[in-house]
């Protein structure tokens, strides 16, 4: 039987790795590597869900772990890659701000997230309490990706990374939302991804490019 302390350490490790993947997505210059890291993040999310499911002995969470693995580890990255190939998008990411300053901003965001979560940590009796801070940091990094990237595809990856971070927070900090809610959220994200796909083709048809700076000019 695995000890409680060991499980706690494993969850902390998962949280640290999750933050690492968020930074990795932010730092990538190539579309392929970006989607690769996005897939790793999805798989990590599934692993964390399974871990918490085991630790908290709640079989419901195994279902959401499976959902995460299929949807976020494989289906979404693969679909996005197919779209990138199909539309022949330039394989470079093209950030609005250089990568290095964005990484610094992200580091500041992590500090900020920890600062905000201070009062929560003191009072929460849950097994994995500093995961709220990391979850929030990853949500904010997801937003940063959306703000500082010029291409529609990269913005979508930012959106989905943000969604991953929310799922991570829900699983690690609260042992998962009730199943109804979790499935509902997954359904919404799926529809959102579908609409994103439709949008790519519309934007492409209308502007002849996936570069969103064309949208601004009208």
């Amino acid at each position, binding site marked *: 039987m695995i000890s409680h302390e060991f499980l706690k350490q494993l969850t902390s490790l998962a949280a640290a790795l999750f933050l690492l993947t968020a930074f990795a997505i932010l730092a990538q210059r190539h579309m392929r590597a970006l989607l690769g890291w996005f897939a790793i993040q999805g798989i990590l999310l599934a692993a964390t869900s399974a871990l918490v499911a085991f630790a908290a002995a709640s079989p419901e969470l195994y279902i959401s772990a499976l959902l995460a693995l299929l949807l976020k580890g494989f289906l979404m990255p693969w679909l996005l890659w197919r779209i990138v190939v199909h539309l022949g998008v330039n394989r470079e990411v093209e950030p609005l701000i250089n990568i290095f300053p964005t990484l610094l901003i992200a580091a500041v965001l992590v500090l900020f997230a920890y600062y905000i979560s201070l009062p929560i940590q003191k009072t929460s009796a849950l097994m994995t309490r500093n995961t709220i801070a990391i979850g929030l940091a990853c949500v904010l990094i997801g937003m940063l990706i959306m703000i500082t990237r010029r291409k529609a595809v990269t913005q979508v990856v930012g959106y989905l990374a943000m969604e991953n971070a929310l799922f991570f927070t829900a699983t690690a900090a609260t042992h998962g939302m009730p199943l109804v809610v979790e499935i*509902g959220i997954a359904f919404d994200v799926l529809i959102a991804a579908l609409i994103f796909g439709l949008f790519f083709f519309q934007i492409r048809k209308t502007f002849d490019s996936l570069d969103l700076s064309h949208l601004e000019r009208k």
Partner: protein
Amino acid sequence: MMNLFSLLLGIPALTCCALAFLGKSRGAARLNIAASAATFVVSLGLAWKVLMQGSQFFNGQAFFLDPYNIFLVTLTAFVATNTAIFSAAYMSHEEQIGRVTSHNLRLYHAMFQLFVFGMLLALTTNNLGVLWIALELATLATVLLVALYRTPAAISAAWKYFILCGMGIALALFGTILIFSTSSEVLGHSNEALTWTLLYPKADKLNPGVMTIAFVFLMVGYGTKVGLFPMHAWLPDAHGEGPTPISAVLSGLLLNVALYALVRCKALVDGATHNHFAGHLMMGFGMLTLGMAALSLHRQKDIKRLYSFSSIEHMGLMTFSFGIGTPLANYAALLHMTVHSLVKSGIFFTVGHAAQAMKTQSIAHIRGLINLQPKIGLGLLLGTIAIAGFPPFGVFTSEFLLVTAALESYPWTIGVLLPSLVVAFAGLFRHLQPMVFGTYPKDVHVVPVNMLPVYIHLGLALFLGLAIPGFLANWFQIAANFLHQGTL
């Protein structure tokens, strides 16, 4: 009676599927009207039940109707019905002039019903998580509708709407997770920890620190959808570029539902923190929004963007009023929600006809409506008078109550409130006057209009300004007290 409630959600859901398969014909618009009207009749039946027997639970504790949400359910179904009637004439004209294809019309009708379903689900659910899901569903349904015309401007507006609301709603979900993290320690790790009616009695056991942080996230998250400054950037674009019936339901209904969610959260947070933090935050956001929107009204060049800024202004006013949080202020805000929704959707119907008659949405090119087509000109004039807060329309009554409530609790806010209202008033009328009066351009033509929905909406707003029916006043009263104290 369980069946009646399943009809309320079942009719829009089933019609959505039906329209997705057979929505290309002329009958689609009629089916859309019939389904919306049926939903409205069902909502009336449920309202009668709540009136006779008080608050109701359905399907165990999964859904509930209380005085706070029943009038919004009825209002949503009512405005959706009239919008469906308006859209039948409007969209067939759009199809004739080639702005939409019949293929896109199928999407339009199916998504309209999905949107109604999402809003009704958000209003009636007893679960915080499902509320979030339903609001997101309603948003996703309208994203494709905003992009319906496929012009570069429409696609860019829809993208902006999607991304900004996606970010906002993510923050709201984070807030919900935070609430769950503290409530699951009180009510156990299950659906019960997200159930409104179980949470309210236990509110003082929730961790105040966590609830405070959670409310900041919910405020920014749902506030984005309400259209509060500075997260409002999506709203004018989405209203301006989408089809007019969609502008009408976005302004009249979706903003209301988002505010409903925010205010429910506020009542819960108030119960946990026992201070006025949440209220003050809402007052601040509301006041900023009001001031910004009032000034922005003056700079608008597009008629639909003009009235969407007026919506932002009124949402700011309601947020401010709910923020004050006394029973009187809550009452004023609830009344304002109702009349604003009626009047604003009525205005958008008229604006839609006006834009079709003048073949443009540019304010500078809309001239002499009352001479060209008196019905449209008169409708626009009366609607704008009503929304600007002239007596005897209902908006005057609610704004009067609001100012009274503000004077009672925070007299200094009047210094911002009244000037903003005057500036907004001036902003609307400087654009309205040349649009309604004067001589019309040469190449315009009279379009077929159906002004009945507009007259019904304005008539109801007038009626609510003169005499609020006893049962409605009673509901508002109960809801206002509930939002003040956090218990029924």
